[in-house]
């Protein structure tokens, strides 16, 4: 047995709450070996992040101890943890948007020349360290102009710069595309070779199987088991997590369920749509699409290739459409604003969950009312029908099995998966016959993923058109009736997901290789 570098023993964390305290960690124990990649998995809200925050000194446990190389340590704040060689990349990045990459990298540990920060030295450090771990960054770029994956690389380099031996990653791949995840895993291997130990949290079991040496499964604040990946399977892990068997990858929809496309009405058509360039350099180029009722049209592609703009264009959030036409059920909506589009009954499950998807300071009820608040029977011309709206929220919470104490709880008290379910419930309820689903399962545990997928499939079967935009190829393949691939703002081609070699075909299109 290789030597243990870190041991957590009997960690207990209780969050005070006026009514009922939350036991986030209940006597959790975990060991990390030197040079291993250790996955931490579990449903939303089981206390994974909490445990890692304790390890990193952000939170203090009520009980339990941390042993580093066999020695007892207490971390009063992250600085203590950093000093002991622990680094953490958080679920939400902790970078400063107006600073450059190099400045962020050295933040709080700046090299100095006299009294001043030595920016040149900082850039040098950035270059050197990025070369050493083969993680590409551009030291002089501002963070606000960097892609998410670049930001993540900055975060990783930052903790390496701090001299971390143990690296903690909280859902590093949630915001990354499969390609970017692949790059990240290459970096993991690189780090492993350099003798670093890694703990990473994820909801994607495929990744666990692919990269991890061992995995610890948590459920409801407790550790269920720690397994050697080589002696385990995905189904096995899933069962340990959720407590029941889950069907992880198989296709959920069959094209044969639907009449041929020609016989079906189209809901959404895009003709030669082009847009101006956004500050981040994205653009739509001559997009033509047709979505029929009953279709789930998957849009695959590496993130940042214009899928986001496509969704915005359909939903009236994109202001700079230069050319082309978008029609919904024959009605032109090219230059309509969101408030016009929304009235037509287009549902939009947004990918920007915390930016657009919810009002963070409001209750679940208030978040669920957005949309119904202007529709009969939940609202009149001027006044809301308060009782009906409450009934609606109640019934949505029940049908979508949203775990909450009350509809008046603040939405941010929910775990990520439940917040996503709220958005989903609201939008599916609003849809007339078109659902635009953008990354519907990002950061959501597998139990919830299954549920969400089922909802989308059910809706398609009920005759809704679904536009599914996702960077998760598994998701696109298992749900779509048709798949198009976007690359640099263009549609590279269409692939039938039922073909046996669909995955590799899509992969080639995603890389910008035109289908022959």
């Amino acid at each position: 047995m290789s030597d243990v570098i870190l041991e957590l023993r009997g960690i207990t964390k209780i969050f005070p709450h006026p009514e009922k305290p939350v036991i986030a960690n209940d006597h959790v124990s975990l060991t990390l070996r030197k040079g291993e990649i250790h996955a931490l998995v579990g449903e939303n809200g089981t206390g994974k992040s909490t445990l890692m925050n304790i390890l990193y000194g952000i939170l203090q446990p009520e009980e339990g101890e941390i042993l580093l190389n066999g020695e007892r340590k207490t971390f009063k704040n992250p600085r203590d943890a950093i000093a002991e060689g622990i680094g953490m990349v958080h679920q939400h990045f902790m970078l400063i948007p107006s600073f450059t990459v190099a400045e962020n990298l050295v933040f709080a540990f700046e090299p100095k020349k006299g009294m001043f920060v030595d920016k040149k030295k900082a850039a040098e450090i950035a270059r050197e360290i990025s070369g050493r771990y083969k993680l590409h960054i551009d030291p002089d770029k501002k963070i606000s102009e960097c892609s998410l994956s670049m930001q993540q690389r900055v975060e990783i380099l930052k903790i390496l710069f701090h001299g971390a031996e143990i690296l903690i990653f909280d859902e590093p791949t949630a915001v990354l595309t499969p390609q970017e995840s692949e790059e990240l895993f290459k970096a993991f291997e690189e780090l492993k070779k350099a003798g670093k130990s890694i703990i990473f949290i994820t909801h994607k079991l495929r990744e666990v199987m692919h990269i991890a040496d061992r995995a610890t499964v948590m459920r409801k604040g407790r550790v269920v088991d720690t397994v050697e990946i080589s002696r385990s399977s995905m189904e096995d892990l899933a069962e340990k997590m959720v407590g029941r068997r889950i069907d992880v990858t198989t296709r959920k929809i069959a094209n044969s369920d639907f009449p041929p496309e020609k016989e079906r009405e189209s809901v959404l058509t895009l003709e030669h749509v082009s847009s101006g360039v956004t500050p981040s350099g994205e653009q739509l180029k001559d997009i033509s699409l047709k979505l029929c009722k009953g279709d789930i049209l998957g849009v695959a592609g590496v993130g940042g290739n214009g899928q986001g703009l496509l969704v915005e264009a359909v939903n009236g959030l994109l202001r700079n459409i230069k050319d082309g036409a978008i029609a919904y059920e024959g009605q032109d909506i090219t230059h309509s604003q969101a408030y016009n589009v929304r009235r037509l009954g287009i549902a939009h499950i947004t990918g920007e969950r915390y930016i657009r998807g919810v009002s963070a300071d409001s209750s679940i009820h208030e978040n669920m009312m957005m949309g119904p608040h202007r529709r009969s029977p939940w609202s009149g011309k001027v006044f809301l029908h308060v009782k009906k709206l409450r009934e609606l929220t109640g019934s949505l919470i029940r049908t979508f099995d949203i775990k909450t104490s009350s509809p008046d709880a603040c939405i941010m008290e929910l775990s990520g998966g439940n917040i996503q379910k709220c958005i989903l419930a609201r939008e599916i309820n609003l849809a007339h016959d078109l659902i635009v689903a953008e990354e519907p399962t990002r950061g959501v545990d597998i139990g919830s993923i299954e549920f969400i997928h089922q909802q989308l499939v059910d809706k398609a079967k009920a005759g809704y058109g679904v536009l599914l935009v996702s960077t998760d190829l598994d998701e696109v393949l298992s749900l779509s009736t048709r798949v198009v691939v976007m690359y640099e703002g263009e549609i590279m081609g269409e692939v039938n997901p039922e073909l046996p070699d669909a995955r590799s075909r899509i992969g080639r299109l995603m890389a910008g290789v035109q289908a022959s």
Partner: protein
Amino acid sequence: MLEIIFSEHTLMTGLSLATPLLLCALGGAVCSKAGNFNIALEGFMLIGAFFGVVGSYYLHSAFAGVLTAVLAAVLASLLYGLFLIQLKGHEVILGFGFNMFAIAITGWLLGPVFGGKGSFYDPATPSLEKINIPLLQDIPVLRTLSGHNIIVYLSWLAIAVLFILLYKTALGYKIRALGENPKALSVNGLSTVKYRYLVEMIVGVACGLAGAFLSIGNLSMFTENMTAGRGFIAVAAVGFSNAYIPLTALASILFGIANAVAIQLQGVGMPTEFVDMIPYAMTILMLLPAIRQNQKKAYN
């Protein structure tokens, strides 16, 4: 008429009127960078003004007056910090509250400290000397930069110092990070509380100097509410410039000069009300270029 308005005298007056604005606005800009929209500048300045006279009168030295002014204003700003940072008050209401408190407490203290009411004016109170800059004072136009008291020069120095502090030093990085993403500090093991108090201290020093300028820099007196809304104009300058120090400084100085022009326009036949509107109207005009900028942002 034009030569009266655009004379060296106007420039000189403008620089003098700009000084309290400039100092407060610089302090406010640092606060704003650190994520605190501070509208209590007026109150800190008033407290500074009062204690400036106290120090100068009782310690018989204008310099001691400046020190007491700064000390008192820093205490006030730390108290503000306590309510903002640890007691989690609403910054706008706290600002209103501290401004009210400053007027009240200085008004009240006039009694026990000076035995007077409403104002304290004793010609024996030392005030700051004017300092001439040897070579400068002989060059036309530029000589308006000479012949001010030490606080004026300090305020100009503060532009550079604060700019360098914010953009070149490690401390400045932390202050700016505080405004953009305070969590970035805590995950790096830094205490946000400490830096937030530090920022309040900086604004306290700046406003204390501004207050001292009003009471013993230019006048050697204290009258109730003598800041007369200058702190609010400073807040406007901060907002207008997005707390970018060079722009903040420019806006404050322009304000001062606009005020000086307005003063020169007195007695030219324009109704006073309209003369007094000039600085405010000017601010609005300065905001208008933002329209096109924002349009570009939205539609590009």
